[in-house]
């Protein structure tokens, strides 16, 4: 009963928190003009940044590359390099921009004084022939990425009404050192950092939505156990129970779920972020595995062998009722609930023996295959804005991380690193 009370108060708290944000986030409906329903990409005319003063052009050039690279990343934009004639003293030549099918025009200026950088950006809607927004960003000359990415985040939010993946982290497993350890990198694969050094087997990392805690499975004790690492000070706690722990996932920043076998069968349990056991969620004969939660935390998708072969089920945490979600194929695992709440990405073993990534609506409709005939593809995880999916593929021989748009477009390697990389998890914005 306490659990239900907690859930209800959590929902209530979430509603209080979320609703005002939504009201604030939409910039007077401007983005509706831009993001045409059903259109694949927003065509963006991106001018080179102008140098205002105090810079020989190096800072502007660097920022230009950072912004250009970042905007190419979310599979949202088609980027055009406009002709010089789009802008003259009398203002923006909207008709010239319209003639190259640009929908949005971006320009900016850079000022550098004593190592301090100021970036003034202006974004225009070409269809509406007016300024969409204008904003100034500042930072240090030595740390330009956050400056450029702050603009990119604002741009995406203005154009789509949603928060972007800029600034988010990806945690993953690599055997680079000869042992499987946990690493993290920025959303674009940059700034790789090794987080664990257990020289054992570390698997299935999951970041709490507030980014403060990392949960993962580790074999340091000789058996797979749940570890929770404080991301600020690097301290870890082990949640010890007899039996094994597999594949943790956060329900919110205070609770996580994992499979434990200490009661005999493999069932999914809720734990507090300090590792204390809280509540058992599944009761079925067979494997129950790989929880992933709806954005409101009230539903859990997971893998169950209750009918024989592994299939994905969705369980309502309030009623306890579970229904089967996947019916195509004999082996469906690794569900990942989309941040918008309407889809589940997962991995299917096809009849050919090939593993591929699919998405399906949480109502079971709208099945879509995202990868095909490109090696083995698995472990999908959504970007926090729901625009992209990071996954593992061995299409180039060894297992590496790739990203793609949420419909499977634009499949690109995320990073270059020795050894193999797998089990990527993209951080969330959930509270």
């Amino acid at each position, binding site marked *: 009963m306490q659990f239900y009370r907690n859930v209800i108060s959590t929902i209530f708290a979430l509603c209080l928190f979320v609703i005002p944000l939504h009201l604030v986030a939409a910039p007077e409906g401007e983005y509706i003009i831009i993001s045409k329903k059903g259109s694949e990409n927003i065509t963006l005319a991106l001018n080179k940044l102008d140098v205002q003063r105090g810079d020989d052009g190096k800072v502007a050039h660097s920022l230009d590359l950072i912004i250009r690279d970042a905007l190419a990343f979310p599979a949202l934009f088609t980027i055009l390099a406009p002709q010089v004639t789009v802008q003259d003293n009398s203002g923006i030549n909207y008709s010239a921009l319209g003639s190259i099918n640009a929908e949005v025009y971006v320009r900016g200026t850079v000022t550098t004084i004593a190592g301090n950088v100021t970036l003034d950006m202006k974004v225009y809607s070409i269809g509406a022939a007016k300024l969409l927004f204008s904003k100034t960003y500042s930072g240090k000359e030595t740390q330009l990425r956050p400056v450029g990415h702050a603009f990119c985040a604002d741009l995406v939010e203005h154009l789509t009404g949603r928060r972007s993946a800029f600034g988010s982290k990806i945690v993953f497993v690599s055997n680079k050192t000869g042992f*499987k350890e946990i690493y993290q990198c920025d959303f674009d694969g940059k700034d790789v950092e090794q987080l664990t050094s257990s020289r054992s*087997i570390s*698997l*299935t990392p999951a970041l709490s939505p507030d980014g403060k805690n990392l949960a993962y*499975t580790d*074999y340091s004790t*000789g*058996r*797979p156990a749940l570890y929770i690492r404080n991301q600020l000070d690097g301290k870890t706690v082990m949640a010890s129970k007899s*039996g*094994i722990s*597999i*594949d943790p996932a956060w329900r919110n920043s205070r609770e996580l779920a994992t*499979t434990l*076998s200490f009661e*005999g*069968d*493999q069932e999914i349990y809720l734990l507090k972020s300090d590792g204390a056991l809280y509540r058992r969620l599944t*009761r079925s*004969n*067979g*494997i129950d*595995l*790989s929880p992933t939660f709806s954005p409101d935390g009230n539903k859990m998708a997971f*893998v169950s*062998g209750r009918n*024989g*072969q*592994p299939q994905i089920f969705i369980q309502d945490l309030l009623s*306890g009722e579970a229904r089967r979600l996947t019916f195509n194929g*004999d*082996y469906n*695992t*690794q569900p990942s609930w989309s941040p918008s709440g309407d889809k589940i990405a997962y*991995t299917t*073993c096809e009849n050919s*023996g090939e*593993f591929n990534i699919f998405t399906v609506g949480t109502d079971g409709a709208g099945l879509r295959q995202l990868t095909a005939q490109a090696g083995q593809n*698995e*472990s999908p995880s959504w970007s926090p804005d729901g625009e992209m999916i990071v996954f593992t593929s061995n299409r180039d021989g060894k297992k590496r991380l790739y990203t793609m748009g949420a419909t499977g477009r634009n499949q690109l390697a995320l990073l270059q690193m020795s050894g193999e990389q*797998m*089990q990527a998890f993209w951080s969330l914005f959930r509270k």
Partner: protein
Amino acid sequence: MKKKINGFLILPLLVIAGCSSDAALSTSGSTVTPASLAPAASPSVKPVPPPPPAAPVAVTPPALPSVSSAASPTTPSSSEQNGLSQSGYGFDQWQTGPVGDVFFEFDSSVLSSKAQEQLAKNAAWFGRNTSKSARIEGHCDSRGTSEYNIALGERRSTSAKEYMVRLGVASPRLETVSFGEERPFDSGKSNEAMAKNRRAHFVVK
């Protein structure tokens, strides 16, 4: 809710029952009943034949490669021959102990009749060597996804353990752990290599 809890109580007894369509190949899919568990608790035990509910096929003479081919077509028979010729137990160079490993079909933790024969031999050995204990490691091939394989590996090690406990080996002497697909015995991608990796591996202590 209460009904579900009651259902859960019989769950451990059903562990061996497995869950794969490959169960058709096996003879052990329905061997366990609550009754068969009860008399199995005595700690030291003579070699015992598999318990009555087990399918009659399981009581055939000790596994000879030629006889066993029908039971499990993907069992690595060539390496098994090596093991047998060297020590009478074990299946390949990774197996150094006197107690033999048992092998499984893809996505299955069901004990084949051949696996049951091997486990009967193992149980007999533990009956003669009462100071010994073992860690049973569940392993999987690299097909399948790695999280699921950790769960499947645990079910394989638990299947093997439960069977031996029913033959009289005291439960605390058999510890189980799963390595999923993390510690392959053969890193090859051939069917034979895959078959070698689908096992419950005994480490005698």
